[in-house]
């Protein structure tokens, strides 16, 4: 009763229409929701659409580089006669363009060796990026090993891990010969048996179940 009086807002003597009371309150015949409820949902839906129109492109913009693969890049690093079977020769080339010296990386290149069942006509280019956390390793001639200065990773002549924290052999680069020059191409990673797989970041295992735990990224090139 008090509620009814409140709704008249103090006005007196309005003609009483004998309207049927809604049951449940607020709902009228044939309605599944109140008018107010419907408008609330509508306004929130429009607000959500407007929000999505702003947020989705922004997030896509930030996330898109994950799915973008750059152009394949080949760079000549010297005539074939520069490289021998017995030892590595250090070459420096640009891996990432547009950032000057910071985009350069180092590889150790030699000819394929029959001792390791490799094609004698092929060239092996081993990356100097340690597969523990990405520090630059160097090839130590006297030991015949690659040694990392940061945390003591050691790799043998072929780049297989023989000591320290690294999780797989050193990465390699694709190579080809054009006009008597050795050219270096995209990076790829290898399993512990030196089978090529797509390039992985340092610290990620390769081969077997690890291929699922560290899935290949769309931004890398297929292995040779």
């Amino acid at each position, binding site marked *: 009763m008090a509620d009814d009086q409140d709704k008249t807002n103090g006005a007196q003597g309005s003609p009483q229409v004998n309207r049927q009371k809604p049951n449940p309150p607020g709902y009228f015949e044939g309605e599944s929701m109140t008018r107010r409820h419907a408008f609330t949902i509508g306004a929130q839906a429009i607000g959500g659409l407007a929000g999505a129109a702003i947020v989705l492109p922004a997030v896509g913009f930030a996330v898109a580089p994950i799915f973008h693969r750059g152009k394949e890049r080949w760079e000549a690093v010297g005539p074939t006669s520069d490289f021998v079977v017995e030892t590595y020769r250090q070459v420096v080339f640009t891996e*990432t363009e547009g*950032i000057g010296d*910071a985009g350069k990386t180092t590889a150790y290149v030699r000819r394929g060796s029959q001792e390791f069942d490799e094609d004698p006509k092929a060239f092996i280019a081993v990356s100097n990026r340690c597969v523990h956390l990405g520090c630059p390793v160097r090839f130590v001639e006297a030991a015949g090993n690659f040694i990392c200065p940061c945390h003591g990773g050691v790799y043998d002549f072929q780049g297989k891990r023989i000591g320290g924290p690294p999780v797989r052999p050193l990465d390699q680069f694709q190579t080809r010969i054009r006009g008597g020059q050795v050219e270096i191409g995209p990076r790829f990673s290898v399993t512990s048996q030196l089978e090529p797989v797509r390039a992985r970041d340092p610290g990620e295992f390769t081969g077997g179940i690890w291929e699922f735990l560290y899935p290949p*990224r769309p931004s890398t090139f297929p292995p040779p």
Partner: protein
Amino acid sequence: MSKLDKLDKLIPAPLRKPAKPGSNGSQGEAPSDLKSSPPERPGDTARLLDQAKEAPVDALAWIDQRTAASGFLTGMLFRKVPKGTNWFYTLGSATLFAFIVQAVTGVFLAMFYTPSATQAYASIAHINNDVFLGALVHGMHKWGSSVMVILIFLHMGRTFFFGAYKYPRELNWVIGVVLLILTMTMAFTGYLLPFDQRSFWASVVGININGTGPVIGPYLSDFLRAGPELGATTLSRFYAIHMLLLPGAIIALIGAHMYLVVKLGTTAPPWLRADKPKIAAPVSQLDAGVEGNGGTPGNGAGRRA
């Protein structure tokens, strides 16, 4: 007039500590006979001087009338703190101060810094070698970041060892942990910006550590680098996160953090025991957990060790 009263006059009226009820301040009685001793009328100079004196208070009053800020400010500035509050309680404010130093010096560094892979190192060298006091501002930002990380951990330790994270302050602990993570992200993204050998290789290693997380790790490191290799977009990405994204988030969360501190109050140190009830309560009531009438409510004083 006592020293304290003089000090009180300096504080604008809206911010003055409210008088205790019952004490009517210094308002004396009205003169008994206005006809025989009329109040002296002030001269023009004196009146102008009075008006000038009142001007700042009037300005504050004008603002206060439109914002009702004085109620909030007196509530915040004269809030109760528990007994035993000591220097350890300043670690949070110290962290806030370190953040303000980072924000101010960062703004001035941004005036000279170029977030480009080919020019970043040269612009930092320019700040350090050529700009007036540039090395000092850069140094404050560089060492201040370590100071802030150290202070935030000390503040966290204080909160933990004083048990200040317990009910009802759990949410403030959670906000604090998020602030800690944001501060560490701030330190990580800021480290790359000078783009020298140390910062380059440290970021390479840091991103690769992110990449070792199973399943999403490889994508996370691609996201951080904006590609398969650390490049020009990595630097601008870190710069944007360091300069625009994180400061906004940190400022917003510091606001929430401090609101809850003021709202909930601080805890007494754990070695402080509750006041003995002034009115002796029967032992049986104490055993039943019924407090005596004189016990200080709240501030951790209601509980006995």
